[in-house]
Each structure stands twice: as C-alpha cells, then as structure tokens.
C-alpha cells in the first residue's frame, strides 16, 4: 500500500471543500472497498478524509412521507430499521443478500453506491483494463477471457464490468434519490437512475459526482406498498456477488417496477419494461435486454434473468 495522510472532518461542506483542495484525496467511511483496493494499489490516494464523524448516520422521515437515509447509515442498521422492513421490504432483502455480517457492519449507504466493480480484470493489475488504466484495453473481452460473471447490457467495447451492489438495485426499483453537497456548500439531488453512468468510451468515469462532491443521504419516496421481493442467483448460497438479481415491486393490479443486478454497469431498469409487467417475464426481459451484447460465456444471463423474474412474479401472485 502507498503511504497516505489522514484527517477527520467535522462538517459535510468542509469535507467536500477539503476533498476539492487537497490533491488526490478521497473520502473514507466504512473502507470495505477502498482499503482493499488501496492494498492492491488499484486506488492510490495520497490523502484520506474520514467522514465518519459527520453525524450523517440517522434515518429520518421526510415531509412527503418518505425516508431520508444518512450516507453513514451502516448496511446492518439500514436492513434492521423497522420502517425499512415494513415499508420498503425489497431494500432489507437486498441488503441481507449482500456481503457478510462483518462487511455489513462497516459498509455505509453512500459507500455501497460508490463501490467499484469486482471484474477480475479490474482487480488484476497485470491485465489491461480501461476502467483502471484508461486506454489500456479490455482484457475481459479478449478471446477466451473469463467473462461469465460480467455484464451483458449497457456495456461497451471499452468495458463490460457490472456494478456489484445489491442495495442499489432495490433502491433503483424504489426510485431513490441521492443527495449531495458540493465543495462550495451548495447541495443537489440526483435521481439514482442518473447517478451511475454507462461506460461508453470512458469507463473510468462511473458516477455523476463532481470532484469533491460528497453524498450526504439517499432519500426514498413515500412507500408504494405492493408485493416486494429481491431474488438473487449466485454461485453459492451466501457471500457471493449476483450472477443475476431481480428487485420486484408488484401491485395487486399487476403493475409495478423491476430492476436487475449483475447484468449491467448500473442497476438496470426502464419505464417501458415496467409497463410490460402485466404481460409477464418474457415481455419485460425482451425490453430490458433489447440492446444486449453478451459474450459467449455470459449469454446465459439473459435467459437466467427472464426465469428469475418469472419465478419472482409467480411468487408475487401467490
């Protein structure tokens, strides 16, 4: 690991200002992804700004009947919150399907959104990776590459990495909004739909955040009810990333929302696919996967996603 300096900060706007002013600085909260990447020298910040003392660790009701989740709320606490369990059960299920108890005790809400891909070619510094080293190529798309776990839709010639979060997939189905503060002190709200960017020619740019901008909270709109489920398919039954996951909210009249994990560089959802929910899994998945460009090794994910949604819909119908 490269040497770095470290400071604790006391207020959110001050944290953002410091991050903008100090060269090559990063925020650290739970550190469950940043510190392991620093050990591998994939992340090499010169300065860490510890935001754990900012007090952004509360879950509060919003004026419109929704919930504001402070960015420092740990995944364990968020999953266990009575309001989340009652009103947003898809979120509790997604959180509990992710990582391990030890990691959930540390991992934060904002950090979970910002975690990096687990593409093996991103992690192996001897391999070409446009995300880690722009312009070096994408070893994951070389002939014979191990791409079974990687993305099938929303991907590009430059990058086929997936976003690994379970939490974000549920939040996408719930129409979450990310609240931030800028170095100058102004705040903004970014719909989660627009928060993660597709790789295109610049896979190293992963989010809409500007330099120094700090996530302060994630808000959920008022509860929408319905039957909510999170179905995760993985190689072993715990402590593994999704091959495919489906966050489903289904209303008694058949309408609802579907977001997919494990298949794309961001939680994968679109309004046209949601409208097709009453027609069943095949129609929904045809829409969600219409621009898919799978590899030979990960083509199976398209069928797997359809079957996973079909199973979730069957369960929702009781």
């Amino acid at each position, binding site marked *: 690991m490269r040497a770095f300096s470290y400071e604790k900060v006391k207020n959110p706007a001050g944290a953002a200002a410091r991050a903008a002013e100090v060269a090559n600085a990063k925020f650290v909260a739970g550190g469950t992804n940043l510190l392991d990447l620093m050990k591998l020298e994939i992340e090499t910040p010169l300065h*860490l700004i510890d935001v754990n003392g900012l007090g952004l660790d509360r879950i509060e009701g919003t004026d419109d009947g929704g919930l504001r989740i402070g960015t420092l709320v740990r995944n364990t606490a968020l999953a266990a919150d009575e309001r989340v369990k009652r009103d947003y059960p898809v979120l509790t299920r997604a959180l509990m399907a992710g990582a391990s108890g030890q*990691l959930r005790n540390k991992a934060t809400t904002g950090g979970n959104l910002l975690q990096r891909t687990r593409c093996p070619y991103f992690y192996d510094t001897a391999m070409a990776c446009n995300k880690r080293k722009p312009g070096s190529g994408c070893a994951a798309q070389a002939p014979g590459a191990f791409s079974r776990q990687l993305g099938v839709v929303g991907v590009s010639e430059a990058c086929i990495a997936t976003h690994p979060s379970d939490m974000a997939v549920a939040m996408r189905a719930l129409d979450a909004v990310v609240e931030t503060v800028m170095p100058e002190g102004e705040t903004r709200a970014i719909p989660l739909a627009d928060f993660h960017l597709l790789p295109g020619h610049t896979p190293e740019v992963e989010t809409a955040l500007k330099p120094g901008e700090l996530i302060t909270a994630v808000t959920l709109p008022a509860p929408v009810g319905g039957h909510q489920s999170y179905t995760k398919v993985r190689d072993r039954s715990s*402590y593994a990333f999704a091959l495919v996951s489906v966050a489903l909210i289904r209303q008694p009249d058949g309408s609802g929302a579907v977001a997919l994990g494990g298949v794309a560089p961001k939680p994968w959802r679109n309004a046209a696919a949601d409208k097709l929910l009453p027609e069943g899994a095949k129609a929904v998945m045809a829409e969600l996967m219409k621009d898919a460009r799978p590899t030979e090794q990960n083509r199976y994910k398209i069928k797997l996603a359809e079957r996973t949604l079909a199973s979730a819909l069957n369960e929702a119908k009781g």
Partner: protein
Amino acid sequence: MMPKTPLSFTLNGSETALFVDPGANLLDTLRRGAGDLTPKLGCAQGTCGACTVLIDGEPHLSCLTLAETVEGRDIATTGGLADGPDLHPLQQAFMEGFAAQCGFCTAGMLMAAKALLDRRPNPSRDEVIEAIGGNLCRCTGYEPIVDAILTAAARMQGRSA
C-alpha cells in the same frame, strides 16, 4: 516521515494506549503494537474473516479497519475469551468437537460466534450458518464448527445440546 498518532482503546477489558502510523490498520496494530497475536491475517482483503474482532460487541474485519477509527472503543479478540485457565464454552466446544482442522479460521469463527451468542443466546442452526457466513474455512470443516457453536450455546443456557 509522517508523525505517529496516539491511540487509546480497551482491549479485552484492559486500557491500551500506543502510537500508530497514519493509515495503520487495526489488525497490524493489535498484532504488532498491542502484542495480541490471536487475530489472524488471512486474505488482507476483507474476504476471509480470519481477522474478525468485536468492536463495541459487533464483528468487524480488523484488516479493513483503520486503527485511528477505534479511538475510545471497546475491542474484543479471542485472546480475551478464556477466564484464566478456564476456556470459554465456545473454545471448549470447538476443542471437544474437533471444530478446528488447520485452525487458521478458528479465531475469526470464535469471534463471529461470540457476537451471535451475545445477541441471540439460543440461535437456530440457520442463524449460526448465517452468522459465520463471512468466515471462510479452507479445510471446509463447517459442520463441526456449526455443531460446536450450538453445543456451546446449549451449555451456556444450561441445557444439553
């Protein structure tokens, strides 16, 4: 060289004060600084769970914890489980049930199990499996580990397993 930072915390009930380098992780600080060799360095990546310690009663990965973040907090390791010559019921049950093969995961398993039993003294088998889900045993000896945790829980409740 960057200056060292003074750090104090409670380790297995004893006040501990030392100096750490900026960016030091808790695992190194416990092993090299405090001389407690019971938490193990496995993957160093937050994957294997061998370095699990309790921070304020919750299981955490000490290899991914910056030492400076535990100022004033309460750390528990396997080094503090036994009471003098008397093993903790978890240690006793692990020993009797051959729940350690190579033994490298054992310290982390014990702490994950302790956190579970502190929170849920009478867990189901599924709850035990979930609680040690973040601790990998490369010998794949999970069944005796789960059995030992259930045996210890039963003894601590004054029942037979």
